């Protein structure tokens, strides 16, 4: 990792540690009180616990123009994003993807063209899903697209675990961490009043709900695909499935949640103050939200258009966006979910002592 972000976070955290007024907001500050001074390990840990709720900025008596110039949300965001980029293999690619939203858009277009060619997708409709693209070519394309990036991501997580001094993970650590992640505990401001993301110094619950919709929508879509795979291979039940089937129910509800959630997140990001977020990575963050939005929205439209002339085109877009999402997975903001979970597990271990 580069020293600059760490140094700046260290400078600021030393001031916080003499103050501690923000102790009640989140796990980052509770972790802080365990240290007298900070090393790279502790800073990276606190940075990955931080949810960028921005409460500690608006509550701080030392923000610019004060000479202490505190901006903890930004300082931790810079360390956090750098920590993902530096821990996954392919740091240079990560930096590029994180800072250029158009890369993911370009990949989507390229994938769409490629699918058009290899899948030979006829631009006419047919009632049968697999007459549009064969199931086997789908599997052939998507298995490596899925496994490869996940492997890269997990290598990054493995290294991260070493950096933060992680120990053997127990059930209790997992349950504490999943509970915090599942409820977005660290985005509730400590007393359930919400975060300061889009409304300046007023608290709001909107980001938490938008994130819940996005996260649970994504998980439902993921569950839909998993269930469909099991039905396909385990029971020989092939798509298309009727509406009242598990894959469809999960997929449609997940898709709706994901579309609504990402739409709202996009809106919130536009209203948020760039000065309190990570430096030079806003474009990549937009790119990431947009690709998630495109995955779910094209999926929903595909379902809705089924049987019409536009379905082929929509399928192409849907598959291309999924491909772009997966290839870039370790290199986009998607990393935050995994690193955050790792940080929460580590925090569960550390706070036990």
């Amino acid at each position, binding site marked *: 990792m580069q020293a600059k972000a760490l140094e700046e976070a260290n400078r600021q955290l*030393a*001031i916080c*540690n*003499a*103050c*501690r*007024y*923000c*102790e*009640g*907001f989140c796990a980052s500050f509770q972790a802080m*009180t365990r240290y*007298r*001074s900070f090393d790279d390990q502790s800073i990276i840990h606190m940075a990955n616990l931080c949810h960028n709720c921005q*409460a*500690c900025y*608006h*509550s*701080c*008596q*030392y*923000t*610019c*123009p*004060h*000479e*202490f110039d505190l901006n903890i949300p930004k300082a931790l965001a810079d360390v956090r994003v750098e920590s993902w980029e530096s821990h996954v293999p392919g740091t240079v690619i990560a930096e590029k993807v994180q800072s250029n939203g158009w890369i993911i858009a370009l990949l989507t277009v390229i994938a769409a063209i490629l699918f058009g060619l290899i899948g030979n997708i006829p631009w006419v409709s047919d009632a049968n899903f697999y007459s549009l693209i064969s199931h086997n070519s789908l599997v052939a394309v998507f298995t490596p697209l899925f496994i490869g990036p996940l492997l890269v991501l997990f290598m990054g997580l493995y290294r991260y675990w070493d950096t933060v001094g992680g120990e053997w993970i127990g059930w209790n650590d997992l349950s504490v961490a999943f509970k915090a992640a599942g409820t977005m505990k660290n985005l509730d*401001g*400590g*007393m359930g*009043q919400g975060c300061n993301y889009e409304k300046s*110094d*007023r608290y709001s619950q909107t980001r938490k709900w938008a994130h819940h919709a996005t996260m649970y929508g994504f998980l439902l879509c993921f569950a839909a695909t998993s269930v469909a795979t099991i039905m396909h291979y385990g029971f020989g039940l092939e798509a298309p499935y009727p509406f009242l089937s598990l894959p469809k129910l999960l997929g449609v509800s997940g898709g709706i949640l994901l579309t609504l959630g990402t739409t709202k997140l996009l809106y919130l990001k536009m209203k948020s103050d760039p000065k309190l977020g990570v430096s030079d990575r806003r474009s990549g963050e937009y790119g990431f939200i947009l690709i998630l939005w495109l995955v779910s929205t094209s999926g929903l439209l595909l379902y809705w258009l089924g049987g019409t002339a536009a379905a082929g085109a929509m399928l192409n877009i849907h598959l291309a966006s999924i491909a772009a999402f997966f290839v870039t997975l370790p290199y986009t903001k998607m990393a935050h979910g995994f690193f955050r979970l790792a940080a929460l597990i580590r925090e569960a271990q550390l706070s036990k002592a």
Partner: protein
Amino acid sequence: MPIEIPKIDPNLELIRPGEGSVIYDVIVVGGGNAALCAAIRAAESGAKVLLLERARRSYRGGNSRHTRNFRCMHQVPKGVLTNAYLEDEFFEDLLKVTKGNTDESLARLAIRSSEECYDWMLSQGVYFQESLSGTLSLSRTNAFFLGGGKALVNAYYNRLDDLGVDVRYLATVLDVVVQDRVFDGVLVDIKGEQSYIRAHAVVLASGGFESDKEWLTRAWGDAAKNFLIRGTPYNTGEVLKNLLDKGADQVGDPTQCHAVAIDGRAPEYDGGIVTRVDCVPFSVVLNKNGERFYDEGEDVWPKRYAIWGRLVASQPDQVGYAIIDQKSHSLFMPTVFTATKADSIAELAEQLGLPVKAVEKTIWEFNAACQEGAFHPTELDGLSTKELEPAKTNWARPIDTAPFYGYELRPGVTFTYLGFKVDGDARVSFSNERATNVWAAGEIMAGSILGEGYLAGFGMTIGTVFGRIAGKEAADYASQSA
């Protein structure tokens, strides 16, 4: 940085009492806790309110933005407050620190009302948090604001916004026009433009005069030039001075201020809470000649930290140096600036710019006077020096284990005691007769209750209680005269 005080423009002749329309019911002067509580209460009572805050928006909230808690009476465990803290115990605590220099009826009013303030503050959007780590001793008596005083101030400004109160930043009140105890209007400089604004009533809540170094110098002599101001640079006291000159009754000793010893590298203003250095009880404190001058271990730190400002202020060049060794390095709250560190006393003295021989001699004598015994950092352990002048009566352990650490200490002024004398309605008086429509709240009148000393968290209690009273009274008066 000190700020510039606008001067009344003599060419403008803006002040025309009785002329022009009265747009506002209540004008609130100041933008800290007391002013905000007053403005909220006045607006809630239906008054049309104008709040004039001298600071820019990002620095709004005076010293209140630096606070962390308020002291609160309660009969049973209440929210984040444990056990009970009853009126008599609270009042006893106040008597101890003020040595009786208080107005009992006002003090008891503040104490009794503090309980309902807790719920009122919650209803205004303030959140509380458990006692901060390292402050467990306060968990029964003091309710900590989640995010500290600036979060509280933000909540109140948002409330004003919801209530439709007009707030002006960079608005310095230069003259409060009162004739025959009747307030008419204020002359205010808003972003460089001066105007005269009239109202039916006024609440004065512009804090003390601790940021006016000239005033401090008149009270303290040249020593004041080396003082650091812990809070806002905006509390220069011109409103206080303006009305005292016009015959408002005063309380509190003009030569006194509350000062603690803080890190000598702190900014001149607004360093706030982080500049404190809590190592004194485990240290020896030297002056610039390398001599000790006071018992560093007289009592536990929360009971003694407030005398060290004064002690350091009376040393040459108003500076002190706290020296500890490796044994004590982790016994106190982390400091904002890292300590000067060296492997020998001589080296440390040199780095701190102290006379090496004198420091070595003092430390040697101190070490020789230390006795065997059990050391307990969190309680009075009686581990005292023998035959040393001045003695160190607790936690006296030899300074002998490298590395050695040193902190430069300077007096940091928290607030001043001089203020308006008010009654139980927070009404200001002139020659012992109540003004018709002038109220005061917060530090600007706290001297009535805190004649000397300080009780942690009581400043915010006084501001909240009397701010609310003043706002309500002013609004009620305005509604009758409108």
